[in-house]
């Protein structure tokens, strides 16, 4: 295999505006898009702004849109593109641009704060937690999330609808609610917090119409829609419309387990 010269278009600019800039740049065997962006920095554009940390698909920093598709730059190999193809790299569209490929992802940190934290069970001390592997499997799948925010970026509820951001936590944080809800020892219910109904009422689960775009872009392969969002929708529906559940909640004897 050999080196070749690839054509790149990289969005450069800031909050005031910007546009695609053309580059011709060397590509070597086995390289990923982030390698090429680094080569541009080192040889042609030293102030090209880009976020990255681990370059191993573990930290979720180098999210961008490559030919319009949300991806991690460190996990996108150049070999998936035709050599003649011009590769376009743009910042995540759902978030405000700071500079070049760097966006303001503060929305996500705001939403993270709005999800009530894990509630430790009363009377179970450190070292006394007992959970079976099959009971933690479901939440563990969601905890694989590296917070790259590609799902937040691609979700059409907010991608082109800034106005929905206030009411909608996005797939990542709805999945966080699901993760806590499925945690075998989370004691939210005992403290008077019904995670299922808050997903619907406070985090905007109803906006999701299960198009699975989030699942498609997830670099960790988490089945966000099938395993987190749909089960929550079903349960939220149970809660809302099941008259017995409704009655139980009204007289203060909520069922602690629902499957």
């Amino acid at each position, binding site marked *: 295999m050999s080196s070749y010269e690839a054509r790149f278009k990289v969005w450069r600019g800031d909050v005031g505006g910007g546009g695609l800039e053309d580059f011709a740049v060397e590509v070597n065997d*086995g390289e*990923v898009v982030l390698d090429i962006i680094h080569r541009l920095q080192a040889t042609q554009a030293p102030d090209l702004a880009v976020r990255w*940390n681990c370059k*191993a698909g573990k930290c979720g*920093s180098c999210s961008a849109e490559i030919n319009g598709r949300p991806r991690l730059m460190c996990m996108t190999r150049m070999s998936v593109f035709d050599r003649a193809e011009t590769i376009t790299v743009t910042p995540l569209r759902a978030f405000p641009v700071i500079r070049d490929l760097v966006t303001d992802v503060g929305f996500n940190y705001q939403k993270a704060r709005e999800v009530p*934290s894990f509630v430790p069970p009363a009377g179970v001390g450190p070292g006394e937690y007992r959970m079976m592997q099959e009971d933690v499997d479901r939440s563990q799948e969601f*905890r694989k999330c590296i917070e790259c925010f590609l799902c937040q970026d691609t979700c059409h509820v907010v991608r082109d609808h800034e106005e929905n951001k206030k009411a909608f936590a996005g797939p990542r944080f709805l999945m966080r609610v699901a993760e806590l809800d499925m945690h075998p020892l989370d004691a939210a219910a005992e403290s008077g917090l019904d995670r299922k109904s808050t997903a619907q009422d406070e985090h905007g689960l109803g906006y999701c119409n299960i198009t699975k775009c989030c699942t498609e872009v997830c670099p960790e392969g988490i089945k966000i829609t099938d395993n987190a969002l749909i089960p929550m929708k079903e349960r939220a529906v149970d809660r809302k419309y099941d008259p017995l559940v409704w009655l139980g909640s009204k007289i203060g004897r909520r069922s602690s387990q629902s499957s």
Partner: protein
Amino acid sequence: MPVVDRQEWDVVVVGAGGAGLRAAIEARERGARTAVICKSLFGKAHTVMAEGGIAAAMANVNEHDNWQVHFRDTMRGGKFLNQWRMAEHHAREAPDRVWELETWGALFDRTKDGKISQRNFGGHEYPRLAHVGDRTGLELIRTLQQKIVSLQQEDEKETGDYESRLKVFQECTVTRVLKDGSRVSGVFAYDRETGRFFVLEAPSVVIATGGIGKSFKVTSNSWEYTGDGHALALLAGAPLLNMEFVQFHPTGMVWPPSVKGILVTESVRGDGGVLRNSDGKRFMFDYVPDVFKEKYAESEEEGDRWYEDPDNNRRPPELLPRDEVARAINAEVKAGRGSPHGGVFLDVSTRMPAEVIKRRLPSMYHQFKELADVDITAEAMEVGPTCHYVMGGIAVDSDTAAARGVPGLYAAGEVAGGMHGSNRLGGNSLSDLLVFGRRAGWHAAEYAAEHAAERPPVDDTEIDAAAAEALRPFSAEVEEPASGPPENPYTVHQELQQTMNDLVGIIRREGEMAEALRRLAELRVRARRAGVEGHRQFNPGWHLSLDLRNMLLVSECVARAALERTESRGGHTREDHPTMERDWRRINLLCRLADPTGGLAATDPVRGQITLARETTEPIRTDLLALFEKEELVKYLAEEELYE
């Protein structure tokens, strides 16, 4: 001079990896208003890359485990150079630190009876590593991050402001620790997004910035690992300890070139993976050093039986401490028995079913598939040593994590020295972060409370000097036109990485290290001319120019200390002094800034910026020594130590 925003906090934590976040949680819970500053986004720190697990003697899988066994393993792994009091705290407290994570929502893999599962790892006598598949670091950082958020939620309920008592300044970089006389008064930092400077005034500063790997070409370390905390401490007048000890992890990816150095977790071997050379031979059996002879299997059959019956068999030599395995791989490659891309073979495909591999090593499966087109369930991986961890670091008090000689300065995690001696065992890093992160946060909060009434003032001239230093790259070419053309910071960085990799790498020789010092002096002069284009808003060229100061300082420490220590021990291998010398065991090497005022202007190319001092270590407490057999101690300790 620019107007610089100032804020008052009680404790400032620099770094938001495992140690920094644990310190911040502790300080806040003890009532200190706490600020955390981190170079990256909150939750992206290098800790996420830790794979294998957290070592803690919980005895969930083997009932014989306890803190004494863990302490023993840690001291053996570090070849007895460890600051033994730290190793003792670490072994005793690690289980509590792990269990506490569960109360904050962590979900570890489970044993059949519902406890936290523990896995085998190099150098650990029993299965000891709490883990989540091969993404334990992610679980750790996310749990701590979410604990911080939960504390902020409590504060919001009480004060209406999430950030009233605990605030994370993300994507900000500290360039100087500020001082009032000898004591800490705060930090000077810039915000990456805007390029604006700001000062956080605080009586206590905890440094938790991690390691130095970005000074080496082949490394498993992320972008952030530029030795910032090491340099900040040096510049503030605190010494660094035993900087010659750098761990080369035996198994990094070797191909393709762009991913060279990325970590392949030790769990691959802990779970049964074996190392083979190009002849198909399990070569590690030829590399068991004398000090470990009795503890490792002598045949493949015995090693294989150990996975099922550890009480009656000895472990396979693939699970020797990392320094031993890395040197062995290096020797095999050098002898011409390497793999096509200059590594050796690491194979799980013939050792367990594909489904088991995918379940136990999901990120490894994914990583090789995505980045190298290798299906690890069907073929062997190619691996070779990669710069992974620095055992050396800021010299600290074992109990309080206080840096020496600078009141108010604390350090925890990889940036602190001592705990791991000359070589760290896998899994001991995450537990180190938690044990000493907590201790640093605790004592920093206590110190801040003691000084609440007379907070150290921050001097304007110090702020001006720090601002001028940080702005220098924008005027590099104007200031010193006579000394040469402006330099590209990326080029200087690449040359630095090549120098350290080639001349102060896994196998060291006197002449090469002297050459490295000469090149470092040259690079230092050139780095002062590193110039940048553009403006201060999110400008990576500028950030790198500033990081170069730190990398050059730390690299000089590593090279000088490595040249001085004329023996081979742990993460320091001298080809010209190949044996471990008992007399060197008691010697710590301390690096200090040559110019005690903390200035760097006078960079004498020959003398350099660092002075070395030798120090005799404190004798190991007798009840701890009694945990070892006499015959073993004889291999490490000098005669007079044995009879004291």
